[in-house]
């Protein structure tokens, strides 16, 4: 029997506000433990939360960017559970009445576009962090992260493959980055993802028993964990065994998921409306202000790249799927305004380089202006395309500008027709047989002559010019 996977993601994004969601403490990452705390975020007796307006604005931006319906009135609720990193013994979140619902995100996988529903987006506070001692059976608590604003984005169970799940998460991350409301760092946990996954026979419409997977802190782990889980569940189902409803943890070192807790051990969070906060009201006017403040989003930028720069849909899609890459592209254009050439270069050379290093464009040492200069030098005929690739590789490792590299390595192209013609005459004189072949119709021999010229000039001859010269001399 063939099975299909049913996957839904719960994504938590830390918002880049200056201060925490319910107090004035700073949110900077990496500060010494417990230096960004106050009586409110430490949950000290008698203190009360006051909602950060910026956090709401950031959440509303995401809601609008993902086409959600924003609730005119939403309610904060307490999620009750005991843990040392949760100072109040409850997390302030939203439950029955979230900030926004019924949105969607379009994703592209293998050239096919799918619309994935977004169930809801709500605001909540982050918990602290436990630090376990290596030497003693003791744990410490760092409350710096306690109260950092989060949005939780819950998808409909409409993803069908690990690739779609990755594309969806990439799409969300990209929008967060475009909006500038989250730094999208999966490794550091400013963007977190849990997955719900079940299998069902193809054609079946009812859902199978779902398993929740946690602890996937990269796109690769998300894909691997889902692939693993599909294999695991399929094997169980084929043996006629039952899937247990449980929460499982992804172990990246072992490449497997492990049971963390079963359904029976699941928490009863005893949600109820937080009496310390009043309902959050979002007026039409406020929402309109936010809508007007939205930056250009990926879909719109793709359309603009096609219309303004005449790029094919594929190129425009690849470039805008990463805000930093699209920004880089446009920065190169500022120096060298030939969109298709810049796009070609980025799609081929730059992306190959990034893939090799598994890095983002931010870590590329080549400044956009320098890449623009390099392409301009090719255009002017100062260097050949082949040379440009060599220069680019140098730029990637050294970070130097193209002119310096070309000068130091003596890579300038010889475009002086007179100088080249003299050498071409010598080559022809030395190879009478080949000249005869050419004249007998074997015009392919032209490549041989150009090659000889390249050899003599150590590759510095302008290849187009060399071709022309040989063709002219042989025609004489």
């Amino acid at each position, binding site marked *: 029997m063939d099975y299909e996977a049913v996957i839904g993601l719960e994504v938590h994004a830390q918002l880049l506000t200056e201060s925490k969601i319910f107090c004035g403490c700073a949110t900077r990452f990496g500060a010494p433990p417990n230096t960004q705390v106050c009586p409110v975020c*430490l*949950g*000290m*007796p*008698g*203190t*009360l939360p006051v909602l950060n307006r910026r956090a709401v604005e950031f959440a509303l931006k995401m809601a609008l960017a993902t086409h959600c319906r924003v609730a005119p009135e939403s309610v904060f609720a307490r999620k*009750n559970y005991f843990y040392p990193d949760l100072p109040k013994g409850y997390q302030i979140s939203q439950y029955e009445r979230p900030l926004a619902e019924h949105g969607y995100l379009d994703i592209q996988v293998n050239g096919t576009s799918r619309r994935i529903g977004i169930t809801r987006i709500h605001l909540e506070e982050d918990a602290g962090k436990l630090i376990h001692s290596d030497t003693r059976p003791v744990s410490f608590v760092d409350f710096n992260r306690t109260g950092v604003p989060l949005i939780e984005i819950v998808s409909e169970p409409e993803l069908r493959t690990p690739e779609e799940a990755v594309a969806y998460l990439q799409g969300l991350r990209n929008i967060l980055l475009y909006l500038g409301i989250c730094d999208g760092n999966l490794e550091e946990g400013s963007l977190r993802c849990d997955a719900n996954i079940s299998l069902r026979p193809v054609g079946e419409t009812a859902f199978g028993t779902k398993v929740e997977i946690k602890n996937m802190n990269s796109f690769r782990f998300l894909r691997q964990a889902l692939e693993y889980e599909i294999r695991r569940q399929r094997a169980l189902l084929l043996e006629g065994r039952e899937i247990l409803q449980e929460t499982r943890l992804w172990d990246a070192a072992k490449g497997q998921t492990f049971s963390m807790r079963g359904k029976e051990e699941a928490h*009863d969070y005893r949600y109820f409306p937080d009496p310390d906060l009043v309902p959050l009201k979002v007026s039409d006017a406020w929402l309109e202000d936010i809508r007007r403040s939205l930056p250009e989003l990926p879909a719109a930028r793709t359309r603009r790249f096609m219309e303004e720069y005449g790029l094919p849909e594929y190129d425009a899609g690849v470039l805008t799927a990463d805000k930093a890459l699209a920004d880089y592209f446009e920065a190169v254009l500022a120096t060298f305004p030939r969109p298709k050439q810049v796009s070609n270069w980025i799609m081929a050379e730059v992306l190959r380089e990034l893939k090799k290093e598994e890095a983002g464009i931010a870590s590329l040492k080549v400044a956009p202006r320098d890449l623009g200069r390099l392409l301009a030098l090719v255009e002017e005929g100062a260097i050949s395309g082949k040379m440009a690739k060599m220069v680019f590789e140098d730029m990637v490792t050294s970070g130097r500008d193209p002119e310096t590299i070309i000068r130091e390595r003596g890579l300038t192209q010889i475009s002086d027709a007179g100088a080249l013609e003299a050498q071409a005459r010598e080559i022809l004189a030395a190879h009478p047989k080949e000249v005869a072949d050419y004249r007998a119709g074997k015009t392919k021999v032209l490549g041989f002559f150009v090659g000889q010229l390249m050899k003599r000039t150590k590759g510095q001859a302008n290849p187009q010019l060399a071709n022309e010269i040989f063709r002219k001399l042989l025609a004489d």
Partner: protein
Amino acid sequence: MSDELCRLSLTDLSRRLQAGEVSPMEVTEAFLSRIERLDGSLRAYLTVDARGAREQARAAQARLARGEGGPLTGIPLALKDILATRGLRTTCASQMLAAFVPPYDATVVARLREAGAVFLGKVNLDEFAMGSSTETSAFGPTHNPWQRDCTPGGSSGGSAAAVAADLCTASLGSDTGGSIRQPASHCGVVGLKPTYGRVSRFGLIAYASSLDQIGPLTKEVRDAALLLSAIAGHDPKDSTSLRAPVPDYPAALGREIAGLTVGVPREYLGEGVDPEVQEAVRRALATLEGLGARLAEVSLPHTEYAVAAYYLIATAEASSNLARYDGVKYGLRVAGKNLLETYLRTRTQGFGPEVRRRIMLGTYALSAGYYEAYYRKASQVRALIRRDFDAAFATCDVLAGPVAPTPAFRLGEKLADPLTMYLSDIFTIPVNLAGLPAISVPCGFSRAGLPIGLQILGPPLGDEVVLQTAYAFEQATDFHRHKPPL
């Protein structure tokens, strides 16, 4: 002479301080010495801050000398030990917080500090304000100054006893289901629960957040108006505090009540109300009528469900509010061999039986499968109770009735029977559920010599008309002038 200073109302003492007839230091010493003499048998105070009080008195004196004093400058107050005081331990009458020293002031404390008040110390309460007799205090009960073998009521029993016994000029308490009005009634003093949101809750250690409200316990109605003026108003640190402008409460006191309609809820004077209480309240109503008010019978049909709804909503909120006492960050920690054991030991030893009972009740009311039947149903009942009051206030300016069904009961009498204790709050609880202002003002004595209070209720933000009516009644009677035999 010094005991005479202690007996003065806030209004009178304030006048004398402003006139320079007495000094804040003199007054403070008088109180410290009286507390020393009398509190051993009453046990109203949990902490007497003699040093702090003397410092504040000295500062107040300098301020008055510069002519910069206000009506509260140099006035000695006692604070219910559930209000956070910077640098002064705040226990909630619980082992859990027996050594807890907040690094911040409650907003009300900060405002009174600003006004130049003197804080004599922190007074007793039921543990975490959970109780109606001050008997659940982990540090022992407070005695009723009128009869030592009776409770002062609760949970602000320390506040009421201290005001009644002239161990402070006035006090701040908190009222979640009657915790200001009931002890005020039982101790023969004035107790005002303002409209929910009128006074900031920041720094009031939460019992049930949607019901808790801070208010004054005083010797006279004018004192309550003065104190409310000082503590009322929007606080950016409390999202539930109201932005409505603060009226001049003392200015409302002179207004006549002739022409006001006083509603008398049928449900508040029926079965289960002690005949002596009924009689005192009926006489009080007649007094109001004599002052020109029109009496009108009204009905609050959902009153009988109020106690049940309250004990679901208040305990649900409490179960969550008190989760923070886990032995991890502050307060008591009783270490176990692992995290769970530390939680269990800390919370078992840190909380008394009544607090544990309410945490369990509230946890149950919020649990999966019970939420709809309990918490949600109770919230619906709460809405119906509000509607009852809305209907009554459509035709009435205020409502009046008893505060409690009986005068103060004996120590130990109801402690073993929590349900009976809970039911004694039947007339005060609906007010909290609806967020209304209400006051208890002395209206008589039982044959045994125990005080009885009249409760006057107003519509939301009707704190002025409540004070106005209570003041008119007080001026027409002399119950507030009686002093307990000490």
